[in-house]
């Protein structure tokens, strides 16, 4: 399936020499549409003039006219040290003629050459074909295993300590008669980790409903609050305890990062929850929360995909779900075969990536050029 990405990437590589060839053909000035853009831009490149070396060289001047019109207008002047110019002000589909002039030490400018081009917008960004291949490949593998799981295939998943501890932590809070605090990150619902956190909350709420343990869910984002309130309500209803659901247990605080932290710190010291969950996206505040929680003696289970915050949760919390484990938690807690299937798909994608890393290494051993060619297949264009 990597073949698909190879093929796509090949197309990109094949296109590049074609452009280079045009430049090499010897024309003093070359103009062409900027590839992979929304249109409206033309690149003009030219061969450096020997005049560059002369004393008093003032630079190049790029002029433009709509093909067929009499007058040129200057679009760039005194270009020094570069032999390209990107005209961002071109209208799509209009043929422009570009003229590059050399401004020497004295006398009239000399014309280096002219070239013609039209700007256009593209319908497919070839620089992103590797991303397309990647998306198609992973989606295919994941959906394939989801479908297999739906067909009833048995799927094994290994243990994750942090998730094994969830039940125990809820049980402990129940015994102590203390509440459970659930923080679903400091990001809005656009973050995948927030969504993962919300689905974990839905599972945790089923357990707190079962044991009738009080649950405290302060929210950072109003949409997350709306959705979480419904999820928790649903969880209580499903466990046959709709009346045990407290409308005010899921509430909005503020979207200010440290305002939110100030409030949650206060809750920890005043309500003294026996268990703190930190799931989702966290930033610098991760350690403030985790250290305050540790000082109150709560069991703390964290999970985040913020690589920079993992060290703080790892050190200050009892259990930490690292990166992908956070997303996997829903599958574990729910034991839904479809979700387990998607985990299997992720594993196979991982295996494919490991294979790609090994292949790349072998190529690098055989020849640096071959290895570089392979590595470039994964290069991403900035915009």
């Amino acid at each position, binding site marked *: 399936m990597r073949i698909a990405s190879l093929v796509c990437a090949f197309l990109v590589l094949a296109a590049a020499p074609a452009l280079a060839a045009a430049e090499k053909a010897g024309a003093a000035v070359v103009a062409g549409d900027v590839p992979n853009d929304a249109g409206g831009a033309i690149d003009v490149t030219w061969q450096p003039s020997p005049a560059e070396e002369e004393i008093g060289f003032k630079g190049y001047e790029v002029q433009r006219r709509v093909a067929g019109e009499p007058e040129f207008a200057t679009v760039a002047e005194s270009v020094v040290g570069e032999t390209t110019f990107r005209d961002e002000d071109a209208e799509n589909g209009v043929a422009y003629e570009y003229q590059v002039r050399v401004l020497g030490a004295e006398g009239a400018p000399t014309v280096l050459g002219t070239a013609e081009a039209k700007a256009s917008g593209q319908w497919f960004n070839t620089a992103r074909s*590797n*991303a397309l291949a*990647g*998306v198609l490949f*992973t*989606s295919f593998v994941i959906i394939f295993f989801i479908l297999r799981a739906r067909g009833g295939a048995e*799927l*094994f*998943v*290994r243990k*994750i300590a942090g998730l094994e501890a969830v039940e125990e932590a809820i049980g402990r809070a129940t015994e102590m008669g203390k509440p459970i605090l659930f923080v679903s990150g400091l990001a809005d*619902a*656009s973050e*995948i980790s927030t*969504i993962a956190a919300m689905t974990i909350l839905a599972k945790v709420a089923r357990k707190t409903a079962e044991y009738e343990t009080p649950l405290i869910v302060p929210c950072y984002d109003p*949409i997350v609050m*709306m959705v979480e309130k419904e999820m928790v309500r649903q969880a209580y209803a499903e466990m046959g305890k709709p009346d045990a659901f407290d409308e005010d247990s899921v509430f*909005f605080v*503020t*979207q*200010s990062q440290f*305002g939110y932290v*100030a*409030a949650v*710190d*206060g809750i920890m*010291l*005043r309500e003294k929850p026996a268990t703190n969950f930190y799931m989702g996206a966290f930033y610098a505040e991760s350690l403030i929360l985790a250290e305050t929680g540790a000082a109150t003696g709560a069991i703390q289970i964290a999970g985040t995909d913020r*690589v*920079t915050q*993992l*060290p*703080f949760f790892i*050190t200050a919390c009892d259990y930490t779900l*690292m*990166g*992908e*484990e956070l997303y*996997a938690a829903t599958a574990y807690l729910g034991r839904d075969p479809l979700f387990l299937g998607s*985990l*299997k798909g992720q*594993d196979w994608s*991982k295996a494919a*990536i*490991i294979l*790609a*890393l090994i292949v*790349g*290494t072998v190529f*690098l*051993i055989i020849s*640096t050029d071959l*290895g*570089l060619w*392979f*590595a*470039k297949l*994964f*290069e*991403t264009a900035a915009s």
Partner: protein
Amino acid sequence: MHISTDIWIWIAAILTLCIYSFLYKDNPFYKFAEHLLVGVSAGYFFVIYFWNLVVPNLLTPLKTGFGTLFSGGGFTGDLAALVPGILGLIILTRLIPKIAWMSRWAIGFYFGAFQGIIITGYMQAYILAQIYGTFMKGADPVFSIAYFGNFFGDPSWGKVLLAVSGPLMIVGVICTLTYFFFSTEHKGFVGGVAKIGIVFLMIGFGASFGYTVMARVSLLIGRLQFLLRDWLGIIS
């Protein structure tokens, strides 16, 4: 020593001390500051979003759009602002229990749009760029037989590091990825590789922790400079 005479500096300084009092223990001063901060900041973001986003991207285009429409100018792109306007109103149906379910339409829109952005964005930044980065450092490959050649030609610490760091990087990425396998037991060969993955994870976490200490201290320096300089005028 020149104590500030600016009332606002005093307010800021006192609130700063109220927050610091939390380090000792929870107390009425902290509670006061905490509730004030929550209230003020909750309102702040609403006001900022309103002026910076809702006005230029919703109210103004709707005004021009409808202005043109009613003066016979036909439909213009400005009226696209109706989309978020209507979605926003749909979100508010949550306030009316009878039709609260309608808010799911807007949430579906919101969630769906972001999932599309996530799929492609993560593929690009979290997968492709990381694979590429495993092989490359700047414009050079992290690993090449030539680096070993260089080392044996003229051995030095720098060259041995250059030669072995690349392979170490690749091995590290593979082992760490292996740790994240969910559908195989961490036993035997896979278990061994995953163990090495844990070694990399722990070194990485330790290093990031140590790396961050400095930045955190500078925040404290900033606050203390405010107290000692702007408020008390002890330092210049």
